[in-house]
C-alpha cells in the first residue's frame, strides 16, 4: 500500500465529515441537452432518450472507453414504465457494455445532485475510479393516471364471469371516474403538508415579505442572464443540441424569453393561490424536459486516461426541514458546508441556487440575513449576512431555463463548474430546495 500513501501525500487532502483523509474526486467534464419546455403533450424524448442525447457526445468527446467506467448513476423522478431503471437502460443504450452496473436515485428535485454526491462518495472512499453521474427528466411524459375508483371498476370488469356480471358492471360505469389526471400535478403536491409546491413558495413570500414585484424583477433578470449567456456562447460547451428521430434539431433552451419585462409579468395571474397570491407562471420555474451528465474521476483514473479535470468536489451536504417551507432548504445545507469550511457567504465566488420559484430564492437570501431565522435554525443571533446577488445564478436559472426535476441538481453543478472557469474564479456552491422539505448542496473548486 506504499504507492497509495505516496499518492495521498503528494496531493492536497480532501476531508470528509469525520475529518479523515480521503481521495480527491475530480469533475472531468459534463454536458446537458437543451431544456425543452413541456407544451401540453409528450415531448420528442423520453427520459432515457434525453440521457442518450447528451451522454453519447459527452462520452465521445472525452474518449475514455465506454466500458471503462465503474458505474452509472442517474437521477430521475418521473420514471416511465418502459424504462424502469433508467440508469441501466441509458448505460446499455450508451454502449457502456452489459457489465456496467447502473442504478437510479430519487430524492425529488435533488436527484441529479444525489447522483453526483453518491458518485463522489464511491470514488472518495476508494470503491470506484470513474463514474458517469447524471439526471434526466421528461416532465412532458408524466403519465395520465386513472382515479382509484376507475381502477377498481376495471378490475371488477376483468373478473366478471357471466353475461349478467358484465351487464351489472357496465351499468355501474360512471364516465366521471375515467377522467384521467396528470400524475405530475399529484407529484408536485406535498402529501404531508397538503400543499402544492407553488403554495409552499406563497408561504415563504409571506413569511419573508417578498413582494410580487421583487419576484417578477428577479424572474426578468433570470431570463436576461440566460439570454446573454446563450448569445455570448458561454453555454456552447455545456449544451449539446439534441436531434429527434423526425430530424428536428433542438439547439437551445427554449423557455427563455429575452423580451420578458416586469410590466409583462405583472399581467399574469397567480396560479397557485388566486386571486391574491404572488406566485405566477412567470416567476416560477418552467415545466421542462432535459438531461445532464457529469464524469467523475479519481486521481488514478485522471492519470490513467490522461484526463484534464475541470474541478474538484470539496464538500457536500443534505438537510431537511418542514415540507411546508421546503424552499428554505438551501439555507440549511449550504450553511452547513460554509461552517465546515470556515467560510462566509461572500467568500464563495459563485453560487447556484436552483430557482424553483423566484420568491423562494429571494426568501433564502432573506433568511440568511434574518436573526430570528438564524436563531431558530442555527442557534445563533448573528445571521450569516447578505449574499451578493452578483455572485448568484450569474447566467440565469430554472425560471428561464426550466426545471426538469431530476436533472436540475446536476445542471447547477455543471454550470457552476463552467462559470467558475470562464470567470477565472475558484470556489462555488450549488444548492437546491427539494419538494418534501429537503435540500442538497455541493461545493466545488475549479481547476
Amino acid at each position: 500500500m506504499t504507492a497509495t500513501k505516496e499518492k495521498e501525500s503528494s496531493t492536497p487532502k480532501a476531508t470528509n465529515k469525520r475529518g479523515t483523509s480521503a481521495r480527491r474526486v475530480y469533475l472531468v467534464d459534463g454536458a446537458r441537452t437543451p431544456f425543452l419546455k413541456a407544451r401540453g403533450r409528450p415531448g420528442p424524448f423520453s427520459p432515457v432518450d434525453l440521457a442518450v442525447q447528451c451522454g453519447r457526445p459527452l462520452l465521445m468527446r472525452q474518449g475514455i472507453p465506454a466500458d471503462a467506467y465503474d458505474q452509472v448513476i442517474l437521477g430521475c423522478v418521473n420514471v416511465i414504465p418502459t424504462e424502469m431503471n433508467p440508469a441501466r437502460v441509458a448505460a446499455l443504450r450508451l454502449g457502456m457494455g452489459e457489465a456496467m452496473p447502473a442504478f437510479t436515485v430519487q430524492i425529488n428535485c435533488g436527484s441529479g445532485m444525489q447522483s453526483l454526491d453518491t458518485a463522489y462518495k464511491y470514488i472518495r472512499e476508494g470503491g470506484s475510479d470513474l463514474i458517469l453521474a447524471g439526471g434526466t427528466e421528461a416532465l412532458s411524459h408524466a403519465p395520465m393516471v386513472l382515479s382509484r375508483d376507475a381502477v377498481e371498476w376495471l378490475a371488477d370488469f376483468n373478473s366478471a364471469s357471466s353475461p349478467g356480471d358484465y351487464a351489472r358492471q357496465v351499468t355501474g360505469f360512471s364516465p366521471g371516474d375515467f377522467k384521467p389526471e396528470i400524475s405530475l400535478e399529484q407529484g408536485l403536491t406535498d402529501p404531508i403538508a397538503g400543499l402544492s409546491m407553488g403554495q409552499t413558495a406563497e408561504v415563504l413570500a409571506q413569511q419573508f415579505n417578498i413582494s410580487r414585484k421583487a419576484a417578477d424583477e428577479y424572474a426578468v433578470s433570470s431570463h436576461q442572464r440566460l439570454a446573454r449567456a446563450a448569445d455570448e456562447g458561454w453555454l456552447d460547451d455545456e449544451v449539446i443540441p439534441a436531434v429527434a428521430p423526425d430530424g428536428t434539431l433542438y439547439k437551445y433552451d427554449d423557455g427563455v424569453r429575452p423580451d420578458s419585462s416586469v410590466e409583462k409579468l405583472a399581467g399574469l395571474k397567480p396560479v397557485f393561490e388566486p386571486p391574491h397570491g404572488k406566485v405566477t407562471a412567470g416567476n416560477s420555474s418552467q415545466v421542462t424536459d432535459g438531461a445532464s451528465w457529469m464524469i467523475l474521476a479519481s486521481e488514478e483514473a485522471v492519470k490513467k486516461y490522461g484526463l484534464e479535470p475541470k474541478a474538484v468536489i470539496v464538500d457536500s451536504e443534505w438537510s431537511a426541514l418542514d415540507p411546508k417551507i421546503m424552499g428554505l432548504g438551501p439555507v440549511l445545507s449550504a450553511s452547513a458546508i460554509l461552517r465546515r469550511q470556515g467560510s462566509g457567504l461572500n467568500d464563495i465566488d459563485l453560487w447556484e441556487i436552483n430557482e424553483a420559484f423566484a420568491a423562494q430564492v429571494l426568501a433564502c437570501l432573506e433568511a440568511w440575513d434574518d436573526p430570528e431565522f438564524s436563531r431558530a435554525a442555527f442557534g445563533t443571533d448573528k445571521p450569516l449576512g447578505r449574499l451578493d446577488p452578483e455572485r448568484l445564478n450569474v447566467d440565469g436559472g430554472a425560471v428561464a431555463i426550466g426545471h426538469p426535476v431530476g436533472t436540475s441538481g446536476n445542471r447547477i453543478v455543471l454550470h457552476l463548474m463552467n462559470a467558475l472557469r470562464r470567470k477565472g474564479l475558484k470556489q462555488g456552491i450549488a444548492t437546491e430546495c427539494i419538494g418534501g422539505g429537503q435540500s442538497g448542496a455541493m461545493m466545488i473548486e475549479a481547476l
Partner: protein
Amino acid sequence: MTGHILQALSAREMERGPSQQTDSPQWKHWKLAEGEQGIVWLTFDKQDTSANVVSTEVLEELEAILEKLHLQPPKGLVIRSTKASGFCLGADIGEFRKLESRDEAAEKLARAHEVVNRLDNASYTTVAVIHGACLGGGLELALACNYRIAVPGAKLGFPEVKLGLHPGLGGTARLTRLIDPMEAMTLMLTGKTVPHQKAEKLGMVDQVVEERHVASAVAAAVAGDIDPAGHGLRGRVLSTRPARQLETRQMRSKAAEKAPPEHYPAPEALIRLWEEHGGDDEAMLRAEVDSFAELLMTDTSRNLVRVFFLQETMKGLTRTEAEPVNHIHVVGAGEMGADIAGWCAYNGLSVTLFDMEPEKVAAAVAKLADLCNRKHRTPAQRRDILDRLTPDFGNHGIEHADLVLEAVPEKVEIKQKVYEEAEARMKDSAILATNTSSIPLETLRDKLKDPGRLVGLHFFNPVAMMPLVEVVSHDKVKQAIVKRAMAFTGQIDRLPAPVTTAPGFLVNRVLTPYLVEAMVMLDEGIAAETIDREAEKFGMPVGPVELADQVGLDICLSVANMLRDRLDTPMPPPPAWLEEKVENGDLGKKTGKGLYHWKKGKAEKESKVADAPDDTIDRLLLPMLNACRACLREQVIESEDLADGAMIFGTGFAPFRGGPMAYARKWGSADIRQALEALANRYGDRFGPDPGWAEDESGRSSEQS
C-alpha cells in the same frame, strides 16, 4: 450486444437431441441418434461448410438413412440442422452448372424426388425443426415432413425465381397443397422469404417455439398433441382447373409487370404448372421435374446462376483477416454522407456524423428513421439503430474511429483540408476513405503525411438500395488498407468492386457513354419514352433518360465533363439545352423537373410514342461495352467477372443478360468490333472500337491454335 458470459452460454441453447450417436459416424453430412420415447434425431451438418445445402451426396446419404429407418421404424423422426446459419440454404447451385442437357437434369432431379418422396411417405411421424434460413431445397425437405416446428428468427422461402427457376424438389406441389395456394404461388413467384410469425400465420409451420422448448414440442408433435396447420378452404375451391384459370390471369399480369416473360420464363412456367396440375400432387411433381429441367437450360437461368456466383465471389473479397471496423466517422452530411452514415448504423456499426451545418446532421437522423420504418424494424430495433448514429457537432469522432470517411463536396481544397485535420487526430491504425467520384486519388493523397492510408470507397445512390461499393486504390495505397476497406464493405452488407483510380473508376466510366448517347438521341428528336422503352426491352431496370433524371442532371453533366477532360476517348459535347436545364435548377427527380416531369417520385411518361430506329439499342449498349472493354484493357478492374458484377450490382444492368462482358462474350469480340465500326462510320468516332476487342480476338485465337 452480447457479453462474453452470455456468449459462452449461448452455445448451450440449441436443442441437439440425444448426445449419444446411434452408430459410428458412417455418414459425412448427417448424424443419427436415438432419444427418448422412440424418437430418432437426425441432425444435418454438412461437412466442411458453414451452411447446409442439399447436394447429391447429401441426398444419397439421406436415402440410405431412410432405408435403415424403414427396416426399423422409429416412433418419430426429427430432422434439424446444427449449423448456426440455419436449417438449409437450398440446393447446391454449383451442381446445377455442371448439368449439360435437359435430359441429364431431369434424370438427376427425378432421383432426388425419389428420396424426398420417400421421406414424405415414411410410416412414422416426421418433424422438421427449423431455425434460421430455410430456403429452396431446404424448405422442400421440411415440407416433406409431417410437422414443421420453427424457432423465432426462422426465415422460410423459395428464392428460386431469382435464379430463373422455380422450386424443383417437390416444393411447387407440396406448398400449394399445404397452404392457401394463392399465398403459395405469391411466395414462389416473388421469391420473398417470410419470417417465422408470417410462416405460422400462413400455415407453413405448425408451431413456433423458443429453442428451449424444442424437445417438448417435438415430443408433443410425435404424440399427436399438436394440430397440424390446416390447408385453407381456398385450396379445395381451387381444386378445379377453371377455378384456377380465373386466378392465374391476374397472377400472370402481376408477374409480367415485375419480370417480363420474354426475359424471365420461370414465373410463367410455374403458373402453368399449377394451372394444369394444381391439386393433383403426383402429376404436379412429375411435371415439376420436366419444367425445372427446361428452365435450367435457359440463358436466363444460366446467367442468373452466374450472377449468383459473381455475388459470392464479391462477398468472398470481403472475407479478409483484417480487423473489423467498429466505429466509422463520416465527415460531410450531404446526401451521400448522410446515407452512408445511416446505412452503417443500420448495419450495426457505431457511427459519428459531422457537418459544418448541424441541420444536415439532424436531417440524416430523420432519413435513417425513415429507412427503419421502410424496412419494418420494430420500435426497439429502430431505437438501437438510431442510438448508433451520434450527431457529432464537435467533430470529436475523428479521434476514436477505425475509419474516417470523407463525403464533402467535390473540391480538392475542401477535401484536403478535411484530411489535414483528420490525419493529425486520427488513430494510427485508422483508415482514411473518400467517397469521391471524380477526383483522382493521386491528387487527394498529395498532401498526406501517410498517403498509404487513403482509399476510395465509392458508394452509389441510394446507398440502402445499391449493393455495390467501388473500392478505389492508387499507386501508394497500402494493401492492408485496401483489404480492410473490402472487409468493411462486407460488414455493412455491400459488395466490393476493387478498381484503380482511373477517371470515373469503372461504373461511371461505363455508364456515362450510355447516358450521353441517350442525350444525343434526344437531340436528334427521338422521344425520351422511345429511348427508355428500348433500354427496358433489353432488360435495364430503367431507361437511360429516366436514369439520368434519377441520378441528377447536374451530376451526370459534371461526370461527363470530367470524363471528357480526362479521357482520350472522344465524347460528344453536352447539348446546350442540357447545360441550360442544369443552370435553371431543373435537375431531375430531386427537383421534380428534368428530362421528365416527376410526380410523387414517378416520371410522367407518354404511353404512345413512335417506334425506335432499329439501331437504337446498339447505339446505347455498345458504347457501354466498349468502355467496359477499355477498363479491362487498362486494368481499372481485374476481370470480366468483376466488371459484370460491378455493373449489375452498381447499376442494375439487366442481370439475366449476365452483365455487359457476358453479353459481349455471347456476341463475340469480332462482331462487336465490327458493329462499333459500322456505328462509327455512321455517327462519328465516339463509337471507335477499343483496341481491347482486337487484342481479345487475337488472344482467343492464339489460345485455340
